[in-house]
């Protein structure tokens, strides 16, 4: 135990001397938390729409107003001689609404006029959403103007939005980004700590000392896990200011989950540092393994269920997937142990696995061939 603490102390002294690393360690989580929490949003707003009204009647204007009033669309003007296809190709608008001539007359006579919506399909997902949006705006236009008997009045849906009634994206991404921030730094520091020893050749001294492999990795990991908790505190404070974090009724859930998450992060980084032996390769490895994969596959951006089954297993072996799950549940749903039992169990298994792999790697404490 004493040896572990001594090793941890030495590690901490080294960390303290690397000013840049410390500054980044404190500053970067906060900046990243802010960025990841507030910038991504899959909700479509202010989509630029050009309108070609070949009817120019009160009814056609009212039809356009239905779109203009929706928060999804923002009307933009087009040049007099610019066709809809041109406006879309130039990127001036993402969608074009074309109202045919005789629109109002056809409606009054009982013919069914067809309004066209041209959508830029570059972002396929947005295109689908816009198509659906147009359909519901269309039906709301009809029921509002009383043109058609709408069956929808017979059954009305009373909707209740639980846990995030404002449908706020920052709240969703803000809580998830805590997982992203804590995925990055502990792993990075762990990887650097080990790789540095190899680069400087100091690793021989550790080999030659009376330390066992287990003591060595435990001592090395301890300060970084502690630093991870400091980051958690800082980020939690920022989160309370920006993203409506609340202290959950049962804070032990978060604390235990964070502990396992940090352990798996640090040991994953150390694993990389051990395997690569150079700092720059270790940084690259962390960027790919801990950061990019977590960012894109952990359910932070898109739900894990949307990932094709063939590569979904990657998501399940990422600690971030389970941690993001716990954080969201704990902070937004105020979930207790019974709900997050499974993800915390998964985190514990992953933490133990990474630790065991590390141990296997350094057990012999000999030079790699």
């Amino acid at each position, binding site marked *: 135990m004493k040896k572990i603490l001594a090793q941890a102390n030495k590690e901490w002294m080294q960390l303290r001397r690397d000013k840049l690393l410390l500054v980044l360690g404190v500053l970067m989580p906060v900046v990243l938390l802010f960025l990841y929490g507030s910038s991504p949003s899959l909700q479509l707003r202010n989509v630029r729409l050009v309108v070609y009204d070949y009817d120019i009647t009160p009814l056609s204007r009212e039809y356009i107003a239905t779109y203009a009033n929706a928060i999804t669309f923002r009307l933009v003007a087009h040049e007099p001689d610019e066709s809809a296809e041109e406006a879309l190709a130039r*990127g001036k608008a993402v969608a074009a609404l074309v109202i045919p001539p005789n629109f109002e007359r056809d409606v009054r006579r009982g013919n*069914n006029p067809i309004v066209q919506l041209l959508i830029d399909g570059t972002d396929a997902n947005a295109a689908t959403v816009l198509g659906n949006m147009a359909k519901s705006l269309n039906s709301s236009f009809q029921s509002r103007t009383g043109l058609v008997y709408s069956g929808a009045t017979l059954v009305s849906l009373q909707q209740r939005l639980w846990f995030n009634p404002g449908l706020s994206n920052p709240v969703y991404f803000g809580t998830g980004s805590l997982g992203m921030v804590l995925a990055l730094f502990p792993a990075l520091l762990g990887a650097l700590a080990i790789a540095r020893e190899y680069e400087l050749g100091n690793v021989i001294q550790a080999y030659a000392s009376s330390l066992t492999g287990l003591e060595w990795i435990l001592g090395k990991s301890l300060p970084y896990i502690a630093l991870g908790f400091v980051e958690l505190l800082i980020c939690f404070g920022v989160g309370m200011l920006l993203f409506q974090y609340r202290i959950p009724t049962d804070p032990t859930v978060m604390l235990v989950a964070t502990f396992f998450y940090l352990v798996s992060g640090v040991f994953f980084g150390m694993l990389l540092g051990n395997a690569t032996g150079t700092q720059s*390769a270790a940084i690259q490895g962390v960027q790919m393994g801990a950061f990019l994969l977590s960012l894109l596959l952990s359910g932070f951006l898109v739900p894990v269920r*949307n990932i094709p089954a063939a590569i979904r297993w990657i998501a399940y072996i990422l600690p971030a997937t389970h941690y993001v799950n716990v954080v969201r549940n704990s902070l937004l749903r105020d979930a207790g142990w019974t*709900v997050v039992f499974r993800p915390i169990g998964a985190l514990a298994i992953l933490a133990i696995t990474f630790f065991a792999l590390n141990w296997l790697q350094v057990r012999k404490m000999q030079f790699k061939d």
Partner: protein
Amino acid sequence: MTAFLRRYVALTVKEIQQLRRNRGLLIQLLIPPTVVLVIFGFALNPKVRDLRMGVVDQSLTPQSRAFINSLTENLSFDVTRRFVRTQDAEDALNKMDLDMFIVIPQDFSRNLRRGHPSDVQVVLDAVDANTANIAQGYLKQWLLVALTQYNTWNGLDPTTPTGAVRVRSTVLYNPGLVTPWFYVTGIMSILIFINGSLVASALAVKEKETGTIEQLLMTPAQTVEMLLAKTTPVFILLMIVLMLALGVSMVVFGLPFRGSFWLFIVSGMFASLAGIGIGVTLATVSKSQQQAQLLTFFVNPPLTLISGASSPLENMPQFFQKLSYFDPLRYLVTIIRGVTIKDAPFSALWPNLAALAAFALILFSISAWRFRKQ
């Protein structure tokens, strides 16, 4: 001029030889981009489907069953469980076994028969605001369809609406709605830029670390020549990566190429120059390779996030949209999407190209100036 060329070529040969011996770097630069492109192209799909839905049917009449059946036919919903008590459904939602549940009241069919409106309660888990929003849209649409069917079965007015306006959506450029195209083009741009800065910073700082920079500075070579020679191999490698990424996207995801190829190449060149410029500048302010890479680590995520590569720019808060004009990556993304997925006219793309060129020039000059100062 000839002296300049001679020195430049000699230095470039030295750099290429150094790079060739650095297997790790080569592998880092060539393999991950391809893997990343394929994984993320497949994985990123924000389309919502198979929403797990619970049903609490308190009515238990033929009408309510028909109503629920039409719901199960909808592909967006996966009616997984039926509950007797509302409390059970609430618990399931709490435990995340469900995404939503629907409660059909006891007087559902009686109200319908009498022509009174009937309230059906829908409870959604709104933690994921986006998914909840889309689910709401699906529900509304389903209801419209379901009710016309429903009325037909009941012998009610099947509401064949006359004078109804129909809206027909046509999707241009990507009528098959292939989602990966959007992400693949975005990731391609990110790779060029980020790899440029990472590798350049590593290379530029290496001489400082090994102490050979003094020797270099004592040679008759000018700093500009040194910098050019240093970046040339990286630049060539980046262009190879770009071609590789384009090839993989076209083969694996069927990404079309509709615009002009030279525009693609030129914008790629400017972007990698800008990336290299950032990398070298960061390298000059740091003492070791590790510090340089950490700094690029710090600079790159924001540039990536606000570029519109991974989520549409319009969705972002106003502040970030304005900020994105200072992000060279934004222009590259626009151009790459403009020449691949859609055939945007040159008149629409040249401002982007000009901005990219300006960024490349400015960033590269700054890096040259910083490089000289050290």
